[in-house]
């Protein structure tokens, strides 16, 4: 990218425009001068107890007071009852791994990380959970038991992860 920027600056001076010639095809390209930076601000007002719990090492879901349905990720509303009267319940942090992958080619926003394993587990309480797998992917066997634990990310925040039990 830096090389491209240099070429654009050079061409702007020589040719008059922010252009580059595509190396492979030889086709002329305009390089957009209007960079757009997106970074979202997302309401978690209605799932604050999830984060309060996570800070204490707990995994919290919501449970409809009317029908007893448990939601993870937690939801504010129960579509079964058209009702929003929910309890916060702690989920048991053990379960069975169902599948996994290792992300080798990462998005740029995860560029600071080495390839990371991701797994989905079915918690003994019922819900499934997707998270990074803190363990050796090579050692995973069908039926692998796992636990949910909380660790501090390189970015500086707390997040849940799966680990072999």
């Amino acid at each position, binding site marked *: 990218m830096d090389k491209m920027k240099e070429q654009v600056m050079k061409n702007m001076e020589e040719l008059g425009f922010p252009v580059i010639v595509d190396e492979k095809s030889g086709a002329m390209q*305009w390089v957009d*001068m209007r960079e757009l930076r997106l970074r979202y601000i997302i309401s978690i007002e209605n799932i604050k107890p999830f984060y309060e719990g996570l800070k204490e090492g707990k995994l919290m879901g919501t449970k409809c007071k009317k029908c007893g349905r448990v939601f993870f990720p937690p939801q*504010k509303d129960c579509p079964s009852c058209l009702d929003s009267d929910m309890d916060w319940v702690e989920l048991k942090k053990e379960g069975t791994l169902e599948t996994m992958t290792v992300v080798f080619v990462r998005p740029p926003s995860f560029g600071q990380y080495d390839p990371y394993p991701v797994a989905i587990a079915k918690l003994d309480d019922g819900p499934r959970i997707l998270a990074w797998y803190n363990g050796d992917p090579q050692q995973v066997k069908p039926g692998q038991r796992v636990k949910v634990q909380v660790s501090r990310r390189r970015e500086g925040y707390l997040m849940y992860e799966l680990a072999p039990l």
Partner: protein
Amino acid sequence: MSENVAIIGTGHSRFGTRRDVNIAELCWESMKPAFETANLEPKDIEFFVVSNAGMWSSEAAVPALMAEYADLAPKGSMRVEAACASGSAAIRVGYTAIKSGMADIALVIGIEKMQESPNPNVIELIGRFGSYFWEFENFGLTFPAYYALHGTAYMMKYGATEEDFARVAVKNHYYGAKNPYAQFQKEIDIETVMKSPYIAWPFKLFDCSPITDGSACVILASEEKVKELGIDEKIWILGQGVGTGTANLSRREEFTSLASARYAAEQAYKMAGIDMDDPIKYLDGANVHDCFTAPEIIAYEDLRFCKRGEGYKLIREEQTYIGGKIPVNIDGGLKSKGHPIGATGVSQAVEAYKQLLRKAEPGRQADINKGVWLAHNVGGTGHYTYVTIYGLEKEVKG
């Protein structure tokens, strides 16, 4: 295949800055009352359409998000977008799904969470909704600026004034103050508008609709289903027209009117059986796309509520207030109710339902004599226009 399609349930979230909810929760806020008014449950929905422009918000797969959150999976869905007319486009998809016989009950949800991005980013993103390469990249056009080019042309040609534009804002705030779902529930006067800072000359802050979070939802059903369910409270979709304009404003013939709107209106009137030479005779009221003040005046003309060049007189004479020739935007319009891009067209349908069924809040209920309401919803700057006619009966009265 169904001969006719009705709106049998509606819901509307509070519009405004909604940092108290996330995207799914905001959708649910209007979906829940839609289910309740239709007396249906999520499992009854056969197909659903999401209207959402996105970009400024985090969740790209809103139909899948709501399939999960609202128990609509595994029913089919898609997202449709026609800039600020997305909501009406979604209604078209729901309508044709039923009319073609592909579904008997369909849900349309319009949602926008614009404030997941800071305002400057939103301004940047909306500006990109014309010709990106020729008009944005080099000339930094914004959404207010595109419409301001129309406002200026209109003033230059017909002698309308900035005060005339301001009168539209005054009317729409007057009614917005009576709408508990509106973003701004406060009356203003002409001076408030005239003294507000310029955004894109001749438009000032109070000429502009705000950046809004909100959702609106309608449930559509076939004529057979309406009978089967014994639905009392409903309105029918009598006609819809849609037109497209060029991406570049420079490729248009004039700037005092939107060709796409004239085209859409003609189609809609024809389909609904409304005389194009005197549509007001058939209508109890209308919602028009007042993303800015001047476009409301231009809409009067494109919809043939008056002759070309006379729209500003309608507002000067207060003919678009309740009691005038035709009440327009008496829910506050985009200007005062707010303009959550993807939700706006659906919100107009909710308003048609409320007005025709005499459920509007005190002080903003139109007289319903003819039983017909019009919604005019423009995407971009006339890049897309949808005009939809709603009625209490399956046909307009001659």
